[in-house]
């Protein structure tokens, strides 16, 4: 009785809320403390509602920055990231960030303003079919043309973004819906419906919500048997472990079974550094030992990974002698690229502990240990110039515990994956699936706002940094102490390297010898900086970067011709790595 009364009172109070105010209420209810966005005509009612709300709005200087900051926020914390934009160009600018979130399974809710309902379909000013645009770059999307639908849609959007395999959800809200009062009966019905699991009552897709994934006991038994019988097993770990928050369970399994481990870029940090037989990243630019161990394996236990082409090389030659046990929350990933001998669909936190069995793999562990020693990284390098891997190693060793590292895309990204070690997968935030140049700085903005007590370092390249350089203004506006490590080879280095190797050194449009003075650019935004170009400046430069209480840009000149090794050529087997293998 009391419950009903208080619910009614709440509902009556809420009855006077407009759609825009309701959106803000839901953000608060969902525990969202910070949203990233950029205003405009069709979303003005929402910005008005935010004006005196408790939810903090962070103005980025481009909507792509807002979307990627939401991604950085979500990935460094596990919370849902939220971004806002107006109709038309605001929404189109979000698209790359949403695609990034889709390919890396990041929970993001994007709210866009749409022209008023009567104008939809008239080619009104700043009208674009945002729902149409969203189909290929979101997990799901909605256009709200009736305020009665708004509460349900917002609830679903948050639920969908974080459940099952997480992903971005877009809610496009017509301007008149933002202005209209939300009817009391709708809120009353919502209050009642909240007594039930929402997705189930709506009869929605179990796969999308990660529901009804009952594990077949026979499959678990079969997986255990394969692991017990294996003589050369490898745990191949992907971002699913991070989404499922199953790091502890993974580490326990690795410890208990002694199985050598390797991760994708998205799962770096999921295994403790230096613990057991962890071989680092595998794939196109993976550690040679990791690739060789996988190629020799007789069993691959794939945990929340998807046999991405950057991991497998030619999939027909990937781990040719191995059987596969594949664990994932998304049934669509299992068997998509590589047939699984045993498929375990479900929550990794529940599945992983069930795979602990006694193993008989000592000779294999010895062999893998040898591989790891034989192919360890070397940091000696001739000349006076700065060798990027050595600098990144220096950073890795000096940065405080729980530093969040974000990267851009290119050679510097892969060097960071190889040489920067973190202890927690939410501390390494890199654009994996989409490979989005321009990711690093806005992702660092989101990470820094989400984790104000932690150091945040953005490792970037001279090509990538220019793609969202405007976000230096966001650092200044909010006093964010993000540390930028800019590896400048005056080239679009990754593409230049491929041109050298695979296009007869015909360097088409990859030379950036007209870059701006980056320290001066930073200064113009109120960000301190320093330029270094000699190896004897590395220690001091890194120390200054990390010690600076505010934002800092360390501009590092490196050799334009430096290549990234190893490299599995496109279409080749992971056994055929090119490069100066140690």
């Amino acid at each position, binding site marked *: 009785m009391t419950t009903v009364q208080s619910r009614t009172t709440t509902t009556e109070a809420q009855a006077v809320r407009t759609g825009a105010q309701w959106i803000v209420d839901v953000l608060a209810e969902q525990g969202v403390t910070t949203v990233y966005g950029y205003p405009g005509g069709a979303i003005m009612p929402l910005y008005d509602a935010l004006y005196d709300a408790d939810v903090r709005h962070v103005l980025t200087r481009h909507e792509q920055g807002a979307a990627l900051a939401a991604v950085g926020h979500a990935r460094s914390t596990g919370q849902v990231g939220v971004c806002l934009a107006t109709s038309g160009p605001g929404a189109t600018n979000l698209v790359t960030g949403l695609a990034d979130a889709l390919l890396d399974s990041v929970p993001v809710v994007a709210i866009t303003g749409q022209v008023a309902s009567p104008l939809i379909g008239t080619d009104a000013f700043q009208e674009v079919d945002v729902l*149409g645009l969203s189909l290929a770059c979101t997990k*799901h999307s909605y256009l709200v043309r009736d305020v009665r639908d708004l509460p349900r849609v917002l609830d679903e959007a948050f639920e969908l973004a974080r459940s099952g*395999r997480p992903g971005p959800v877009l809610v496009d809200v017509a301007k008149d819906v933002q202005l209209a009062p939300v009817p009391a009966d709708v809120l009353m019905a919502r209050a009642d419906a909240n007594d039930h699991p929402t997705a189930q009552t709506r009869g929605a897709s179990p796969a999308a919500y990660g529901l009804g994934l009952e594990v077949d006991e026979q499959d678990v038994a079969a997986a255990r048997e394969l692991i017990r019988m294996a003589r050369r097993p490898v745990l191949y770990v992907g971002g699913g472990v991070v989404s499922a928050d199953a790091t502890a369970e993974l580490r326990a399994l690795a410890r208990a079974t002694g199985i050598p481990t390797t991760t994708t870029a998205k799962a770096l940090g999921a295994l403790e550094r230096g613990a057991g037989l962890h071989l680092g990243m595998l794939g196109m630019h993976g550690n040679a030992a990791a690739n060789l161990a996988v190629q020799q394996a007789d069993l691959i236990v794939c945990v929340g990974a998807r046999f991405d082409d950057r991991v497998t090389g030619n999939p027909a030659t990937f781990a040719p002698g191995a059987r596969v046990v594949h664990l994932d929350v998304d049934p669509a990933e299992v068997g998509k690229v590589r047939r699984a001998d045993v498929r375990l669909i479900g929550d990794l936190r529940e599945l992983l502990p069930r795979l602990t069995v006694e193993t008989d793999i000592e000779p294999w562990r010895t062999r893998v240990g040898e591989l790891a020693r034989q192919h360890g990284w070397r940091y000696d390098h001739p000349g006076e110039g700065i060798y990027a891997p050595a600098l990144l190693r220096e950073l890795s060793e000096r940065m405080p515990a729980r530093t969040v590292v974000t990267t851009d895309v290119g050679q510097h990204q892969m060097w960071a994956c190889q040489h920067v070690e973190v202890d927690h997968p939410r501390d390494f935030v890199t654009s994996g699936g989409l490979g989005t140049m321009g990711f690093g700085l806005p992702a660092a903005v989101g990470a820094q706002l989400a984790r104000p007590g932690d150091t945040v370092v953005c490792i970037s390249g001279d090509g990538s940094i220019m793609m969202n350089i405007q976000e230096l203004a966001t650092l200044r506006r909010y006093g964010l102490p993000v540390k930028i490590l800019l590896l400048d080879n005056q080239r679009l280095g990754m593409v230049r390297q491929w041109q050298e190797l695979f296009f007869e050194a015909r360097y088409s449009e990859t030379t950036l010898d007209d870059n701006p003075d980056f320290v001066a650019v930073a200064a113009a935004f109120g960000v301190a900086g320093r330029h270094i170009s000699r190896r004897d400046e590395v220690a001091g430069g890194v120390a200054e970067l990390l010690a600076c209480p505010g934002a800092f840009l360390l501009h590092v000149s490196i050799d334009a011709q430096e290549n990234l090794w190893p490299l599995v050529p496109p279409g080749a087997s992971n056994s055929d790595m090119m490069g100066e293998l140690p």
Partner: protein
Amino acid sequence: MSADRREDTTERQRGRPAAAGRGATEGISADRREDTTERQRGRPAAAGRGATTGTSRSPGTTHLEVVARVAPELIERLGRVLRHRGALVERLTFEACASEAVLHADVRCAAPVEVIVAQLERLPDVHSVRAS
């Protein structure tokens, strides 16, 4: 039904796609009679069932039946997944009522059909997918 079959064969021979809509419509009307009870329960008639049985399906095609929550963009969503995942739609029928919609499609795909089914099942609006 056999009349439909003859019609479709002729159009196919002219190098045009089978008149899915027409065949489907005729199919649906047959189904409509059959499915009154289902409709009364608030479900749309299984539109394509009529369409499929009423027309020929070329060898190598798979029939998909997708039941989903109604949304204005539902056809686009399903069509996009089919195209993007490599299924070529040869025939399509769709019917929606207030809450649920049924799509029937004959598709030809290079990828294993289970892959397409799994991708369709991931769509939040989709209740079920059947391949035959």
